[in-house]
């Protein structure tokens, strides 16, 4: 099967691939001309700018005050709120706590037990390979290494029920195996406050595990978004670090006010479907 560009279509099964491009030759000529003009303008601006004369970067769009403490609540297991950042509608699933004083997190293979009254939040964690159903990237449950792979640079490591996220994570991986912790890999979306959109293109429902200071929370996009737009919105929201979670229509379970469990998405079959789970 030949690769296809985002600007092309093809009828499936046609002898010649039925490939058509909506981008005529004169389009490429126009792009070339525009690029030349842009390069010339950029070079001129750079030459005219004196070092140290640069303007300070614009402040982030005012969307949410990261330093604003969450209102403490002992009766509410989880807070949900919607917000819009850079025209990207987001839903935030926040356990009402600050790390490390939060409900215990864990990683499990297989569906969460919905009869478990301690279950607060469960989201699908590591991706599962399309070809053999294996887990993508390093994966450790209770100190047991279930899969290997460093292609995805982001990680979540859990020690004594307390999760940490970041990029790299070789030392944390070893520590989880030594200390009976948990570990999985995913794409980095935000690192040190900067958006780091992963390569895969296309739009879909996105999810992320995010950190602002000692506040860890899960964010889901309400609409289908590109990784670029989603990661940029998280960074502009004030997120300091974020890694992707399995998105699309994958299952997310949360306990709402009143104690009832709610679910979003559909259960994905497969022996290696895995979840990041918080329990009270």
């Amino acid at each position, binding site marked *: *099967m030949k690769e*296809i*560009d*985002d*600007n*092309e*279509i*093809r*009828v*499936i*099964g*046609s002898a010649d691939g*039925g490939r*058509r*491009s*909506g*981008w005529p030759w004169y*389009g490429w000529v126009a792009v070339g001309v525009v690029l030349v003009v842009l390069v010339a303008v950029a070079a001129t601006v750079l030459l005219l700018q004196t070092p140290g004369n640069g303007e300070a970067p614009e402040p982030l769009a005012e969307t949410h005050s990261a330093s604003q403490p969450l209102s403490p609540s002992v009766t509410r297991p989880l807070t949900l709120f919607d917000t819009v950042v850079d025209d990207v509608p987001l839903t935030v699933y926040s356990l009402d706590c600050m790390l490390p004083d939060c409900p215990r997190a864990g990683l499990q293979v297989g569906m969460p037990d919905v009869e478990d009254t301690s279950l607060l939040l469960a989201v699908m964690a590591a*991706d*599962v*390979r*399309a070809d053999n*159903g294996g887990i*993508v990237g390093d994966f450790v449950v209770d100190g047991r290494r279930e899969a290997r792979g460093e292609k995805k640079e982001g990680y979540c490591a859990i020690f004594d029920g307390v999760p940490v996220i970041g990029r790299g994570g070789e030392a944390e991986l070893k520590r989880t195996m030594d200390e009976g912790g948990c570990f999985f890999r995913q794409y980095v979306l935000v690192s040190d406050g900067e958006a780091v959109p992963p390569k*895969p*293109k*296309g*739009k*879909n*429902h996105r999810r992320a595990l995010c950190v602002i200071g000692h506040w860890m929370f899960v964010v889901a996009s309400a609409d*289908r978004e590109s990784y670029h737009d989603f990661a940029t919105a998280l960074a502009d929201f004030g997120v300091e670090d974020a890694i992707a979670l*399995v*998105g*699309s*229509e*994958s299952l997310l379970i949360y306990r709402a006010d009143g104690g009832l469990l709610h679910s979003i998405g*559909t259960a*994905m*079959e*497969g*022996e290696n479907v895995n979840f990041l789970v918080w329990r009270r």
Partner: protein
Amino acid sequence: MVQNEHIVITTSVDLLRVAADELVYAEADGNYTTLVLADGDRRVVTLQLGQLEKLIAQQMPGAAAGFVRIGKSLIVSLNNVRYIHPGKGMLELRNPAGAKYELTASREALRALKEMMERGK
């Protein structure tokens, strides 16, 4: 549309069987693909979109020409295309029950799709 053609997607633990006229569209998300079916059911499968495209071509040879791959992210059933607006990057599908699906794709790809459908293909 050739009747009785299906794609069958199997894993070690389950099997999904979808008839040609049941598939409204499929959307990629990295290693996964979401199949949206005529009855509104949505199924996430651990297949990349290119692998699904290959399955459609192999398992539904008669019906495959009724589906078009649009860029890296979409496969849509031509029978369900209701509205195309390349300028807005908008593609609207309707399933047989009348449910509406608004999708986005590149303007260039939609322009090509519009031209293809104008020619009656």
